[in-house]
């Protein structure tokens, strides 16, 4: 199973990359929740009662899951959570694109539509990240990180 072993080793830098990516993405959302709430409202998908709860909770889940990926602790659970988030972001993005909204995706620090407009490229980028999350959840064997040190393997 040399291929599986190679994939397991490749999953290590991938999960570090994903972990850093999601931790980086959530920092501004945690620092300025009102701005993230406005980003969510701009998508015009969620009802008003749900916007603030999502704006408050989602970045912290991103942060915890991102740190777990970097630390290599409960990797499969963390990567599945992030894959689920990516799926939700993708659906929201596609709806916004279908409506022809000229807006920023709100994925990182809030930017104007002129700086970072949503496009098919944004969808492609999110699809790649979704694929990487699924790759990690499938192939990670806890080679470097807490799961490995604790002798925990989910396979």
């Amino acid at each position, binding site marked *: 199973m040399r291929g599986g072993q190679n994939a397991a080793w490749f999953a290590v830098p991938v999960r570090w990359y994903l972990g850093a990516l999601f931790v980086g993405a959530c920092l501004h959302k945690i620092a300025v929740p009102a701005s993230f709430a406005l980003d969510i409202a701009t998508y015009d998908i969620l009802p008003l009662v749900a916007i603030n709860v999502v704006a408050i909770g989602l970045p912290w889940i991103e942060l915890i899951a991102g740190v777990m990926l970097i630390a290599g602790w409960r990797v499969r659970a*963390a990567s599945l959570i992030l894959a689920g988030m990516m799926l939700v972001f993708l659906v929201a993005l596609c709806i916004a694109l279908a409506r022809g909204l000229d807006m920023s995706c709100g994925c990182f620090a809030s930017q104007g539509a002129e700086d970072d407009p949503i496009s098919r490229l944004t969808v492609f980028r999110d699809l790649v990240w979704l694929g990487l999350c699924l790759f990690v959840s499938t192939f990670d064997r806890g080679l470097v990180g807490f799961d490995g040190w604790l002798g925990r393997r989910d396979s």
Partner: protein
Amino acid sequence: MSAVDGTRIQSLRSTLVDAALVVLTGIVVALVVNFIRADGLPLVAHTPYLTLVPCPEPGGPVEALDAGSPEVASPRSFLVDARSDIQFDQQHLPGAVNVHYDWLDPLPETALAGLARSIAASGSTRVVVYGDGGRPDSGEYLAKEISGRGIKNVHFIRGGAPAALGREER
């Protein structure tokens, strides 16, 4: 059920429990921090967010023509009047057809299909649209809409009907 299947199910269950715990922890931490911080958000927004998303500009490329340009009077031009049917009945350029430009529903599919058929049957090589000549000009917007929906070589008359029909009267 084999021992391997049992282990997989156990592993999946354990992963889902872990994921649920992470989500729960995230929500609890988020609520506590939000409660403590000075700029925390209310859990439910009381007033709608003021989001400003510009609507996309419709259409494709069009060229402006002066009312007196030879392309307007050319027999190869298919003239389209974007004004209301009442205004069209009162006066219009000879040979023009009426496709009323409705700002809320600019060019319904049926109107577009009828227009495309008429243009093809006429053998014209260009489409010249004129509207009310206002700001914004319905003729320019209808021309962009027609161009954006796949009809090529679309023009509009600068100044709209006042310019085109005023010249006609002279």
